[in-house]
């Protein structure tokens, strides 16, 4: 499809659908391959970044969704209804972060990390559509496995699970150094 037309079609679809649309489906409509479609979407995103534009594109795994620029929030709340907010307690956030970083994960494994039972938290997160059942573990009793959803990516502004804030290497090192310097102090006592 001619490039300008393709962009117009992509914009029309993303605007109308409101929801996220898989890149594969977009590619099928404009009759281009996936790479070309991604490239067009990137060009559009660059256009949207201009100062006189109010919308932007957000990537969620293999899908794209149109949304407003976050810096315009203060003007939007004057007129639009605030988007659905989740009240996430510490318990829910802790449970969610374990699931996010260790998915797919069973209830028992979550409980091991937190040291407390997690039935209630898991059910709440399922209700919020932030996590979902992703299968069963190939182990005795075939326990359920949980993982995060597209709603999770959207709610936390994460493009894909790989895009989660990196902490492992750096953070662990930091914790360790902290620990070591404290060990030396301890020895004096």
């Amino acid at each position, binding site marked *: 499809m001619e490039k300008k037309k393709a962009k117009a079609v992509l914009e029309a679809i993303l605007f109308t659908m409101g929801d996220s649309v898989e890149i594969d489906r977009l590619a099928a409509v404009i009759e281009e391959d996936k790479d070309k479609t991604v490239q067009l979407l990137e060009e559009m995103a660059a256009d949207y970044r201009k100062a006189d534009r109010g919308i932007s594109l957000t990537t969620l795994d293999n899908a794209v969704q149109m949304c407003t620029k*976050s810096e315009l929030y203060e003007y939007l709340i004057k007129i639009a209804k605030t988007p659905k907010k989740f009240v*996430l307690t*510490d318990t829910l956030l802790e449970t*969610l*972060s374990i699931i996010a970083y260790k998915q797919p994960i069973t209830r028992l494994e979550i409980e091991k990390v937190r040291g407390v039972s997690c039935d209630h938290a898991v059910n709440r997160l399922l209700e919020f559509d932030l996590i979902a059942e992703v299968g069963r573990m190939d182990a005795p*009793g075939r326990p359920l496995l949980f993982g995060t959803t597209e709603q999770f990516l959207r709610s936390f*502004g994460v493009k894909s699970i790989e895009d989660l804030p990196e*902490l492992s290497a750096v953070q662990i090192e930091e914790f360790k150094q902290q620990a070591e310097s*404290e060990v030396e102090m301890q020895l004096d006592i």
Partner: protein
Amino acid sequence: MAIPVKLEVFEGPLDLLLHLIDKNKVDIYDIPIVEITEQYLDYIRQMETEDMNVMSEFLVMAATLIDIKCRMLLPKEVNEEGEEEDPRAELVEKLLAYKMCKYMSYELRDRMVDAEKNFYKKPTLPAEVEQYRQPVDYEELIGDMTLNKLHEIFKQTIKRQEDKIDPVRSTFGKIEKDEIDLDLKTTYVEAYVRSHKTFSFRKLLEKQSSKMEIIVTFLVILEMIKTGRIGIEQEDTFSDIIITAREDVGSEPLQLTSVS
């Protein structure tokens, strides 16, 4: 030694332990187990929870701490590679994993605050598009699933549910369920009094099938004596008590508050 801070709510035993470690400014890899255990026990003594599920989680950790404390006093265990094992190692690992999880949850919270600033749009599909429903290809959807397979899945699901019931603990549950319903017992005794007018206390007790039932029946009788609905006579010490109904029995329900 009392904990000077006001009691906070902790997410669980690991959370409390991390708090104590932070507060004492000690190293997670070298926890002064004696002190921390004391503080930990102090804390759970002050905990004002009656929720046994919550309490037991904290108690399990207390037991772990005491266990570590004991092992610290004994000669060090040596592992297969000939290295001395620190009894605290496992706990340290758990604490680190939990600390990570807390850290990650803060990260997520920050991200959520930013992400909440994006507004989305509801679909506004033209009618002809909206009305279009992709036909479900049932052959593809059902695939090689059959009723027998579905039944098999059902059996598995039900079986899992049964398995989840701990066979020993579920019997504890049963005993609990058999606990006597005070209201029911009151109604029962009232009816008994009304139909018998004068009767032997011993006979009434003999009809009760468990110790708990006997106790509750006895309580109901005591309450009825107190409110003057029945009178009692006893000829000699330890001889049978004869209970006689007063006239207005059953006219208004007994007011008993819960017995537990």
